[in-house]
């Protein structure tokens, strides 16, 4: 069975389990008076398993299964836990500050997980197709390299006394462009408008460029295009990292909330019952 088939078969089983759970929550589960305890503890166990995926990354030297297996399980159990969470809450939004914070925390972790999953499925292909593959931690060096090339190109041009038109335009428009990453959201949303704007500026300027500067002008145009590609790599690779900064810390917060919730529920359950 191929990897894609394995992945989709896991999702089909999860979808079936979610449907069964939803149906059962309407017709079968309400028959049990203490179903909230069972679903609550089951949910807590799921959270522990889901959190273990991150711990698995820290212990590659122990034989605890391949990370790809853990990710598949993480996705399937994560989706199922979303449904179970609503079953546990009785399909209502909870009241009270603590329980609302808890529920929001779960919801953000759940949604950030789905967003991260979507990005993990779609961004790699976009990055490959875009080209200019650069490891994330080398992007600042690559950017600096482009900047130095562009500056050298402009400085080497002209007679040394009178700045050329291309030099002036570089200082005016592209000087800051090469310094740091640009157009994060535009690249993320696959918008070509920043690059189109630069292309249009180059086209406009080309008619005023002197013949001797045309070579340098073409090279500068090429460097700007490369910088756009590098920014594209940066934006998508940054997004692929950033979502984890929401998902993981909140997952740990969720565990703390869960423990507190369990303590509170069991402390006051006698009074409630």
């Amino acid at each position, binding site marked *: 069975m191929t990897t894609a088939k394995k992945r989709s078969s896991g999702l089909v089983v999860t979808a079936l389990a979610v449907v069964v759970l939803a149906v059962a929550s309407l017709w079968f589960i309400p028959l049990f008076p203490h179903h909230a305890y069972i679903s609550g503890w089951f949910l807590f166990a799921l959270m522990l398993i889901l959190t273990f995926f991150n711990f698995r990354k820290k212990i590659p*030297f122990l034989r605890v299964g391949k990370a790809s297996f853990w990710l598949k399980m993480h996705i399937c159990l994560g989706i199922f836990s979303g449904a179970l969470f609503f079953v546990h809450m009785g399909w209502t939004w909870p009241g009270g500050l603590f329980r609302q914070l808890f529920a929001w925390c779960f919801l953000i972790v759940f949604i950030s997980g789905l967003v991260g999953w979507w990005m993990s499925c779609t961004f790699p292909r976009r990055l490959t197709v875009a080209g200019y593959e650069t490891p994330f931690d080398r992007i600042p060096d690559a950017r600096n390299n482009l900047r130095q090339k562009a500056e050298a190109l402009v400085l080497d041009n002209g007679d040394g006394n009178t700045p050329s038109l291309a030099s002036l335009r570089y200082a005016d428009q592209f000087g800051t462009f090469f310094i740091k990453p640009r157009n994060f959201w535009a690249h993320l949303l696959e918008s070509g408008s920043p690059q189109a704007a630069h292309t249009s500026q180059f086209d406009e300027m080309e008619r005023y460029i002197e013949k001797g500067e045309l070579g340098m002008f073409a090279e500068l145009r090429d460097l700007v295009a490369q910088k756009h590609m590098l920014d594209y790599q940066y934006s998508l690779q940054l997004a692929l990292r950033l979502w984890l900064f929401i998902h993981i810390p909140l997952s740990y917060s969720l565990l703390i909330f869960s423990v507190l919730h369990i303590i509170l529920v069991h402390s006051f359950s006698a009074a409630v019952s």
Partner: protein
Amino acid sequence: MAESNTSLAELTRKAAKPDRWDDPLDPNMTDADVDGLMAVEPFASMDEKAFPSSMPLREILKADTAIRKYEPGEIVVRRGDYGTSAYLVLGGEIEVVLKPHLDPRLLGRAATGKKKGFASRLAQLWSNNPEPEGWDEKSLRVSDKFQNSVNTDHNSVFLQDFPKIISNTETAAMTEGQMFGEISALSRMPRTATVVASKSGTRLLEFSWQGLRDLMKYDAALKQQIDSNYRKYSLSSFLAKVPIFTHLEVNSPEFQTLCIEAQLQTFGDYGWSGEYKKLATDGDPETKANEPLVVKEGEYCNGIYLVRAGFCRVSQKYGGGDRTLKYIGAGKIFGFEDIARQQENPEEDIDSLFTLRAMGYADLIFIPTATLVKYVPEGQLKADLPDGIAGEAKPQKKMSDRLAEEGIHPPTNLMEFVAEQRFFNGTQSMVIDMDLCTRCDDCVRACASTHDGNPRFLRHGPMMDNLMVANACMHCVDPVCMIGCPTGAIHRTSHGGEVVINPASCIGCTICANNCPYDSIRMVEVRTNKGRFWVDDNQKPLLKATKCDLCIEQTSGPACQNACPHDALTRADLSQENSLIQWLKKR
């Protein structure tokens, strides 16, 4: 005319033409040394006139040989090492260790097959060094005992208590006039035995493989002697494993005749790795033109070629150029299909359907059709092309047919990429599907976690479409990195196994890193646990060679592969064309 000359001068630059003798094996060889050699056998009997004026015997000896002196107990070659030199005993005596083989630790290697226990694996959670390349003093050296064995002036290793060690093993002595190591040098195979000098003042003449090749070319007696040794010790064991000859008894007259009729042919240059580095730096659109032609498409090929060592490119005309169909390595056969076709149509002259070129170098064995017809059963000759030799699966159908049945066609551009980049040399190449890789670097972190906090590869490398071959040790079929290691620190764990470095016996000479054509070995300046650099007596930082060891000490296999959450990374055997294709099929 004058104008034409002027423009030529403007367009060209004068430089000294590279010469065959530019890079001698030993720059200190003198004419007096050569005179001395000319007085001893086998050179004394060689006819100098048989050598062409462009390649005189004396020049070969001066450029391609070196006189080495050894003391008792000094190791000349180690079992399992790769080398490109052969030796002639000029004086003194050496001992060839037959059995039992010496303890790897005596040769500067790590004990083989030692895996970490559960406790020490778990301890990596907290015991990894916080400093990059932080090494404690104990791990810098094997032991004081081994350290005393290393002569850093000569980059050589001695066996301590040599007489006692030798007394416990079976050895064969070799004295003046005897030659050894020539088969390993000419066929690029690992040394089969350890050789140790046993008498004081032992003098050996070291030949480079180029020198040996040229001497054999112009001296029939030497060629006959080496050919005879090769057929006796190496060729027969190789042919005995070829599927189409397995029905022959090794001691039978037929098999012996087969060994005599087989022709040994070497194409290309063993120093291909240097050429590859140049190619990678400068780029060369004429790569194929520089590959020695073995068989040309459309010409009659009267026999089959068995690849003994090295790699060949199989290509076919396509439009105005050649299209690479596959590359074949050790154990593969070329030309069998043409012979089978000819057997079916005996009246016709069947021309080769493909072109065969040696990539880098190739050590081939040519079996003429007449010999093949004599010794291969008729039914088998008309059968499909056998794909492998002993140890590999013996498919009855051609690879292309089987893959086509499964809906897979080996992409030509993938074949070209693997061939151009010389990745076919890798048995454990790190291939990443960049369409699945989220660039999370979990593989890098896992590698660091299992190597004391230091990653041993770069997640970056050449790409073809969505496939990247990352800069990690490929554990090559032909590990050129192992040639010349003075202490034997870089070695294979077993025959054909992983190439690993024993950090403790690495003296930081950088030979392996310079030899590696793929830049997969990094020299690191080692530090103390507090981040201070370890330095030697001259205040120079201590260097150690580092590279991927395929997590040899871990029980869970390569951490990089297991840590990839998206199954985007695999360690593929690119020396087998179907390995990568099968993995891609599973995507």
